[in-house]
């Protein structure tokens, strides 16, 4: 199980290391979204800074969509799905492996994006909020990666997957966006009068979301993989 998981995750990361699609296409796209927000909201009046938790996580959501699509595009090409089925790896391990690889890639993109938000929007992280911000990012990334992998598998192989995936995935991810944004607002202190402790219940919600989708995905992935 663990060996299978590591194999699948390492495979996905190796493909990314060689093809560099996320670094050369998705990361610049994310940067562009940050710049677009500055065009849409007046950068001089402090709106960007006070809205930065929300803008950051909306951008992460967009980036996750691209990353999920990429994660399953590499399986569909050259009949990768059939090979995965033939490989005899455990479906739950394949699911967790792909989710892990996705989570690692998302984490890297989030670090880059956060640096972008700090530089472009003037957001700063206070010492007291670091733990909360880290806990939020970790749990949210696991939730995004597991729900994304489950829905990516659901839509993979369909001719309309590129248009269908956002419609299916975004409503499901609403609790993640809400949770992350509120927790980040508390951690960064962008809303006046919100103590840091207000953020922790949201982290609990994110943990619940991550658990539900990790378990659900591990169970459902086998049946989903069967129908190529």
């Amino acid at each position, binding site marked *: 199980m663990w060996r299978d998981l590591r194999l699948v995750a390492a495979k996905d990361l190796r493909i990314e290391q060689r093809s560099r699609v996320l670094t050369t296409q998705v990361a610049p796209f994310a940067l562009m979204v940050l710049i677009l927000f500055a065009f849409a909201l007046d950068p001089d009046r402090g709106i960007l800074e006070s809205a930065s938790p929300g803008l950051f996580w909306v951008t992460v959501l967009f980036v996750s969509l691209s990353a999920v699509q990429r994660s399953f595009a590499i399986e569909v090409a050259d009949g990768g799905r059939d090979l995965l089925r033939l490989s005899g790896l455990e479906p739950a391990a394949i699911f967790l492996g792909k989710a892990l690889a996705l989570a690692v890639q998302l984490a890297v993109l989030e670090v880059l994006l956060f640096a972008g938000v700090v530089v472009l929007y003037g957001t700063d992280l206070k010492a007291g909020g670091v733990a909360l911000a880290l806990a939020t990012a970790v749990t949210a990334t696991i939730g995004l990666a597991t729900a994304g992998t489950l829905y990516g598998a659901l839509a993979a192989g*369909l001719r309309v997957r590129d248009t*269908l995936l956002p419609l299916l995935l975004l409503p499901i991810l609403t609790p993640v966006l809400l949770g992350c944004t509120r927790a980040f607002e508390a951690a960064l202190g962008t809303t006046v009068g919100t103590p840091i402790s207000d953020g922790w219940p949201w982290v609990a*919600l994110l943990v619940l979301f991550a658990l539900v989708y990790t378990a659900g995905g591990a169970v*459902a992935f086998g049946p989903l993989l069967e129908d190529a």
Partner: protein
Amino acid sequence: MSPTATMSPEPGSGSPRRPSVLSTGTRATRILGILVLLAFGWLALFGLVFSPRDEVQKDWVRFLYLHVGSIFVSYMAFGVTACASALYLWKRTRSLVWDRVAGASAEIGVLFLCITLMTGSLWGKGTWGVYWTWDARLTTTALLLVLFIGYLALRAVDGDREVRAKRAAIAGLVAAADIPIVNQAINWWRTLHQGRTFRILGEATIDGLMLFSVFVALIAFALLYVWLMIHRLRVAQMEEYLEAKGLEVAIAERLAEADPVTTP
């Protein structure tokens, strides 16, 4: 008449058998249809004539009957979708009947949810002065609509019948499991920001006749749901039959075409 009475119990695979009726209407459904019409007539009478105007909401309160009736039925319909999805996924009860039930129920649920949101917006414009407010319940309802529109979009993708059914059942169950989390998140979101400003119904006093009219609406909408379900299920069954039959006919024609060549 129960919707499954006219369905041929089919195993998970194989071509669909000929439906026992080749029309969506039978005597039973016509009687049911008349009952639905009567129930809505009754509702119109109570909702528009007998029930009193509200002191604060004036005549706008009459939207309530459609609003409550339709939301009640759409929640019930999504519940049916979730149960039918689970029954399809469970190997011992796997049957395409459950897949059709799930799909038909979700379609009707989405229809009624649209009615709920529309009547709610009009009522809101009349009493609050705005079509929409970011109230927890409103936001959850809007998300529920998008969630199930996505589910229907997934169902509409063509492909192998069995594969499609399994995929839809998983999506239906995941969507249903997501609803409590969405609900919790949105409730927190609104309560952390501000207290609930509006209440849909005054908690303490509701006029007896109003309550009775709401009750009439529930019956009318529930009957309409059953009537729509039976018809939608029969249409689905016939569609599948036609699909399978169409292929057989095409093969037969093709063979007939090839015949003269093989026999000189």
